[in-house]
């Protein structure tokens, strides 16, 4: 009865035998995560400041780098995995991502559409004059 397969608490590292817990392998996971996050952060700052890239694609590039870094944090710091003991954590996370996407993308679409359909007066044509 002792080997019942419960879910894993979010944030708990998985599948390491007791002898290994908290020793070098755990430190290695966090260190890899830190290194990847530092690289991605440095790339974000570089992308925002370089003149080598096409300016129109920079926002998209920054978004992709942020999503990648979020993935690094989830995998290496929060230990979210695809294993069966993590299904509930991943499902809750997926629901959260769905709501976040709906709120952000929906707001931007609706407000851009409203701005497009506004009566074009001189004041509204200039976005810097909105209060």
């Amino acid at each position, binding site marked *: *009865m002792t*080997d*019942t*397969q*419960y*879910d*894993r*608490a*979010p*944030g*708990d590292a998985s599948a390491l035998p007791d002898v290994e*817990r*908290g*020793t070098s392998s*755990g*430190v290695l996971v*966090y*260190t890899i*995560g*830190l290194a990847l*996050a*530092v690289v991605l*952060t440095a790339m*974000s*700052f570089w*992308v*925002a*400041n370089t003149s080598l890239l096409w*300016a129109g694609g*920079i*926002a998209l590039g*920054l*978004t992709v*780098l*942020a999503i990648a*870094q*979020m993935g690094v*944090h*989830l995998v290496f*710091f*929060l230990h979210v995995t695809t294993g069966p003991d993590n299904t*509930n*954590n991943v499902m*809750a*996370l997926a*629901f*959260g991502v769905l*709501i*976040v996407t709906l*709120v*952000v993308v*929906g*707001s*931007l679409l609706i*407000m851009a559409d409203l701005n497009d359909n506004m009566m074009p007066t001189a004041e509204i044509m200039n*976005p*810097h*004059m*909105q*209060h």
Partner: protein
Amino acid sequence: MNVAVAIDDEVPHEAAPSTSEAGPAPKRIVVGFGFWVFLLSDIVMFASLFAAYAVLAQATAGGPSGLQLFNQVSVAIETACLLASSYTCGLMSLAISVRRYATVYLGALITFVLGAAFLALEVREFAGMIAIGAGPQRSAFLSAFFTLVGCHGLHVTAGLAWLVVMMAQVAIKGFQAAVERRLLCFSLFWHALDIVWVWLFTVVYLMGVVS
């Protein structure tokens, strides 16, 4: 399980019992999952603040824009502080699982100092902006900026207070199961704040400097 064997003894029963037969999950899993769901709801709240900021980012009402206000060096140092504190928080959770008091205190101390340095830089940035008349009442862009970044700063402040309380509990109560569960929740909270900051420096500071 013995009842199940008596009813249906053709099926081999080497397999572990299903979770529904085994009763409620251990409290660490229930607490951790509940806090995980809370964190996701907190992130949904941040998403609405992000949406408000993204909608209002160009509405400067003739006032200063992000390009004029944001100091990228300061943002880079803040990012480094928060990322490093997330790392030391992770090392602290490893030390908790093997009951090393000294390492736990050291990890907590470094995490606290880095978090406090982050907050100090942010307060200095806010004070500098308000001093030149770019406070939250100046424009819709600045209202949204102070709400979004200030809300994250308040979360970090709450996290620092929580960390101090947890270290007092470790000192007084030791590593009881309840204290360990709270420390698990704290590390989840701290890592989640770092994820929010990734989006903050990307959407607010870097995209603000680009456009």
